[in-house]
């Protein structure tokens, strides 16, 4: 049972694209304004790549290009706010991913064994080994670790929540599920991920201890 933790808020991330600036950016992007398109690209492309590379690393860049093309063609018909826009973009991404998997020979996602991270990157320093390893990860490594540690549905829910910054309702919309299903799956994913990380850190620490002995 978790006690009542004291939540220490961190300052919100401020980017070039937020709810207030989104309508203007969207309107300019619809006219082909490259500056507005650059704002959208800077905000969305890293999210798209991290999401796609965690699923299909070899074709992720190509799939991302297809998503941008579909976005450009459907931009005039889109109506909604920033969360709705991100939800729409990830819906397109999932469809492109599904199309790729359906029409092409499925390629392995080259899942990364979580043990590799901790065995290869643990430097043997004391303290929390898993934390020290994670701190040296790239964003893509972290996403890959999430994806490889969880079943597909749980990983997808967490990635859409974390990378896409979508709320429960929008994730349910993208996955064509109910919000309650998303909420339950999210809890299970968090518990499982925490369990995996703790197991790996314990094993890593035990391995270090045995080597020391």
């Amino acid at each position: 049972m978790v006690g009542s933790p004291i939540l220490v808020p961190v300052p919100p991330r401020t980017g070039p694209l937020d709810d207030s600036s989104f309508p203007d950016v969207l309107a300019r992007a619809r006219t082909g304004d490259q500056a507005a398109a650059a704002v959208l690209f800077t905000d969305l492309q890293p999210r798209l790549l991290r999401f796609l590379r965690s699923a299909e690393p070899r074709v992720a860049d190509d799939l991302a290009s297809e998503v941008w093309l579909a976005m450009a063609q459907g931009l005039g018909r889109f109506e909604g706010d920033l969360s709705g826009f991100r939800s729409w973009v990830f819906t397109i991404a999932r469809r492109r991913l599904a199309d790729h998997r359906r029409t092409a020979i499925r390629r392995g996602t080259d899942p990364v064994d979580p043990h590799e991270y901790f065995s290869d990157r643990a430097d043997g320093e004391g303290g929390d080994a898993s934390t020290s390893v994670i701190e040296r990860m790239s964003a893509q490594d972290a996403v890959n670790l999430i994806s490889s540690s969880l079943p597909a549905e749980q990983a997808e829910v967490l990635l859409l929540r974390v990378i896409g910054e979508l709320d429960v309702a929008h994730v349910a919309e993208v996955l064509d599920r109910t919000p309650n299903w998303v909420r339950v799956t999210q809890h299970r994913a968090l518990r499982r991920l925490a369990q995996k990380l703790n197991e790996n850190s314990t094993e890593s620490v035990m391995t270090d201890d045995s080597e020391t002995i």
Partner: protein
Amino acid sequence: MTEPILPDDMANSLIDGTVEASSVPTEFRGVAELFAVAHQPAADGELAGMAAALEMFSAAVTGAAAAPATTATSSNVISLFGSRITKRAAIIVGSTLLIAGTAAAAAGGAIPTPFFSSAKDTSTSVTSASVVVTESSVATTQSSVESTEVETTLESELVAEDSALCTATTSSASPAPSSTPNSAATTGSVDDKLSSDASKHGKSVSDFCTEVEHQAEASGVTVSSVDDHGSGTDTGSSVDTGSGKTGSGKGGSKDTTSSVAGTGTTVATGSDTVDSSGSHKKP
């Protein structure tokens, strides 16, 4: 081992990255660290090829905006229409639609009254007829029928009139005791008219009368009665030409009633009746 339960607000804060890893339960600190790393800003490699992607994006946006105008131009539509449907088929379809629409409107009473009758007639033969009966054609047909009736009426009328004149002349050959100067004057005018009609046919009065009487017998025209008693009142006796209905002003038709009244010296032609006293009465 009991599974840790994470409250909703804690889970959301963890996922959103709005909480420090140190403030979350120990079991979830690794998860918080992992999410914080996943939230990192874009690396250089993730924004590679941005210029080319923006070019493609802008071109696609402007192309998508211009696409409706290029794919559905009117000339393309017309050429497609012309290649698949001939003009004749289009005319047939258009005519059928027009007739069916007019018939439907007539059935619903949704068209002006002048068009209603012709449209209603048309509605009965929509499936087979392709000719729209207009009001003008109906009027033309009606006027031609009337003129035929008038010609027949005039011929019969002339026979009846001449027959009556001949009869009157024959009667006046044996003068009645009650004949008056007025009646003599009237008889004179009868003779003049009879002689003029005979001269028109190039015959004498007696031959003309003989022929007229033959024609009257052949056409069934009879002089029903001749009032020889000189009562001075119009008995309304008439010569029925048997031509049926005559128009009341339409197409210049005339009243075919010819009456001989009084002492047989009154011949009424047209709508007015002249009795022996010279007064006019409306029939």
